[in-house]
Structures are given as structure tokens and as C-alpha cells.
């Protein structure tokens, strides 16, 4: 199976990029591609339940709805461990199918047939 990692490095600081990242991730997962959203730097804030609820970029579905569709379609969210810790976020507030990972996991994915796109 093809594999795609969608790297999202933005949250409320650039909700356009954060939103479009999930739109593309949904196109991928719904097409039968093994799809991971990798949240790093500011993007890790999205991995806190409730944070995305207030993000609704004009012209797109609300970010919460996009994330729910992504997870419901079988997508997985990875969260950069040092980025998460640096910001003092709460491991107990992660959405479903969301895992905190280190760089090795990302490298393994990309070097075993995965490709990536960054927002």
C-alpha cells in the first residue's frame, strides 16, 4: 500500500495551512493510502482536545470536522515528542488515534516507501 505523511507545522498561527493539511490528508486516507498526519513545531497544539474547535478557515470545513473525518477514515496522527513537551501540553488530552512519537518513527516511515508533503 502507498504511504503518505502529511506534515503540519502550523496551528492558529496559520489556520489556512493547518486546515489545508488536513484536507489533503483526507483526500489521501479516503483514497486507500496509508496516511499519517505528523504534527510538529506549532502544529502540535492541534493535538489537544478542544483546541481545533474554534478553527474554521473560510472556504473549508471546520478543522474539528476535518480531523474527525480523518480519524474516522482510519488515519493516524503522530505528534512530535520534543515539540509537545516544549509547549507543556497534556498527554491526557490527545484525540483518538493520536500518538506521541520521536524522529525515528518518522524516518522509518519515510525510508520504507513513504513520501511526504508539508504545510
Amino acid at each position, binding site marked *: 500500500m502507498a504511504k503518505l505523511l502529511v506534515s503540519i507545522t502550523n496551528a492558529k498561527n496559520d489556520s489556512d495551512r493547518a486546515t489545508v493539511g488536513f484536507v489533503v490528508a483526507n*483526500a489521501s486516507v479516503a483514497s486507500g493510502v496509508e496516511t499519517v498526519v505528523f504534527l510538529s513545531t506549532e502544529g502540535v497544539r492541534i493535538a489537544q482536545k478542544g483546541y481545533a474547535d474554534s478553527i474554521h478557515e473560510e472556504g473549508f470545513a471546520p478543522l474539528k470536522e476535518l480531523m474527525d473525518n480523518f480519524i474516522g477514515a482510519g488515519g493516524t496522527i503522530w505528534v512530535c515528542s520534543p515539540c509537545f513537551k516544549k509547549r507543556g501540553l497534556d498527554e491526557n488530552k490527545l484525540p483518538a488515534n493520536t500518538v506521541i512519537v520521536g524522529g525515528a518513527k518518522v524516518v522509518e516511515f519515510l525510508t520504507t516507501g513513504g513520501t511526504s508533503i508539508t504545510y
Partner: protein
Amino acid sequence: METLHPDSLYDAADLGCGDLAIALMKAVRLVEAGQLLEFRANDPGAVVDIPAWCSMTGNILIAGQTGANGNSYFIRKKGN
């Protein structure tokens, strides 16, 4: 043109990009293998995205038509 007799109808209206793909996935899940789905979609990207989606997922795009209800894509679900 051959008259098609779909088993199911799904109207995606103006959904596009990832929303369109999610709608395709959900609509195809609702029909049985071998059945024909009429999928209506009027986003300008749908004419490119739907053949690509069918190619990736193994479902078969039988035809595309433009009628009074907009653009319809007839997709036969794989597996039969």
C-alpha cells in the same frame, strides 16, 4: 448512450478535494460489491479527482454524464 440503472445515488453537491474523497469513500461503502453508484459532484476539480480516486481504490468509473442535476459519475464498486 447506454442507459444506466444505478443501485444507489449520492449527491456530493459542491464538495471538493479532501471532502470529496471522504464523500466518495462513504458513498461506496454504502453499496455492495458489483453494484453501481451514481455519484453527483459539481466541484470543478471532481472531473479530475474522481477518475484518480477510482484508479487508486480499484473501483470502476463506468461513465460521466452532465444532466439537469449537474454532473454524475457512475462508479461500479470493486469486488464482484
